[in-house]
């Protein structure tokens, strides 16, 4: 895992690879959420600094690298907008840092890949509803009203992820 090499060995070559992949994705996400190119560039750099600093907190049995970096980018976007604070849930006592279970990490990776594949096969209209929800073109009441939102379709995938996560939480 590239992120673990960053955390354990402070490996700047591994980080450069991570940066090449995720930097442009974080910047695209911020621009789709309404930031201009200059702001998005600055905030994407902030996000990558945070990725380096928090790499030790990344747990591949609970989230993929893309998922974990998405949450950091989302939090940076919320700070950037300075409107609504978003408190985090109380953290669970995950216990002493154990070496993540390879099998759990692999299973999570596969389910995440299946979720992404399911997303790609959705009809265009449904896919764009989900994108609009995540890129904040929909308010929460619009999400509640959005009849085109294919929550049923993606649910089977989400349920798989849920089973996996339940297992890792228990």
């Amino acid at each position, binding site marked *: 895992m590239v992120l673990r090499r960053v955390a354990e060995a402070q490996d*700047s070559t591994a*980080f450069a690879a991570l*940066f*090449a992949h995720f*930097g*442009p*994705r974080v*910047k*695209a*996400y911020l*621009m789709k959420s309404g930031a201009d190119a200059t702001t*998005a*560039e600055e905030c994407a*750099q902030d996000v*990558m*600094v945070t990725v*380096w*600093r928090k790499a030790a907190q990344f747990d591949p049995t609970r*989230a*993929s690298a*893309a*998922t*974990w*970096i*998405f*949450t950091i980018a*989302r939090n940076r*976007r*919320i700070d950037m907008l300075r*409107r*609504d*604070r*978003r*408190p*985090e*849930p*109380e*953290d*669970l006592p995950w216990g002493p840092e154990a070496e993540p279970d390879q099998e759990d990490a692999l299973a999570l990776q596969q389910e*995440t890949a299946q*979720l*992404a594949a399911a*997303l790609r096969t959705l009809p265009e209209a449904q896919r764009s509803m989900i*994108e609009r*929800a*995540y*890129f*904040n073109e*929909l308010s*929460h*009441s619009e*999400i*509640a009203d959005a009849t085109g939102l294919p*929550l049923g379709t993606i649910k089977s995938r*989400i349920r798989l*992820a*849920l089973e996996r*996560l*339940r297992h890792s*939480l228990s």
Partner: protein
Amino acid sequence: MITHHLSDNLLMAYSAGSLPEAFNLVVATHISVCDECRARLASFDALGGALLDEDTVAMGADSLANVMARIKSEAPTAKPAAPGRDAVLPAPLVDAIGGGLNHVQWRAVGGGVRQAILKTSDKASARLLHIPAGAAVPDHGHHGLELTLVLQGAFRDEDAVFKRGDVEIATEETQHTPIAEPGLDCICLAATDAPLKFRAILPRLAQPFLRI
């Protein structure tokens, strides 16, 4: 055992980061005590991760060099001290109040009910309610959306009983008369994106003064 959970729509909006602060507080507080919704949220975050992976915009030429320079030169900002624990209030609420239950500044609102309004952005309001065991929450209908999360005791309305950790999601159509169950006084966190409309004339007159 929690039986009334957050909806998919609320979890998705919390994951996307598009909820008003008052609703974020309810969602974060519920997830603090509900492993099922914690796992469901992780699934919605995974959806965000899948969307993040799809599109790219090129970074500036000196981006990586800038970031590496910052990593080497800037001291990481110190983590804020973890808030104290409270038996009734989960961490997001202790943070919002700046302390435990004994720090809450209650005000009487009639019928033995007390409330404390929490500071949030003005798109929606959040407050703690303290309802004596057996007492009624004033009869009301709703504009917009109202979330009520039980933190201590329980309340009952026409349809169901809500206990610690349960969240009631009420919309425009919901007309109900919640009553606190006997036993412990009921403490709830309630958030709404519109003023409550009370049916009785007196509470309605008092509404502007109570800011509810």
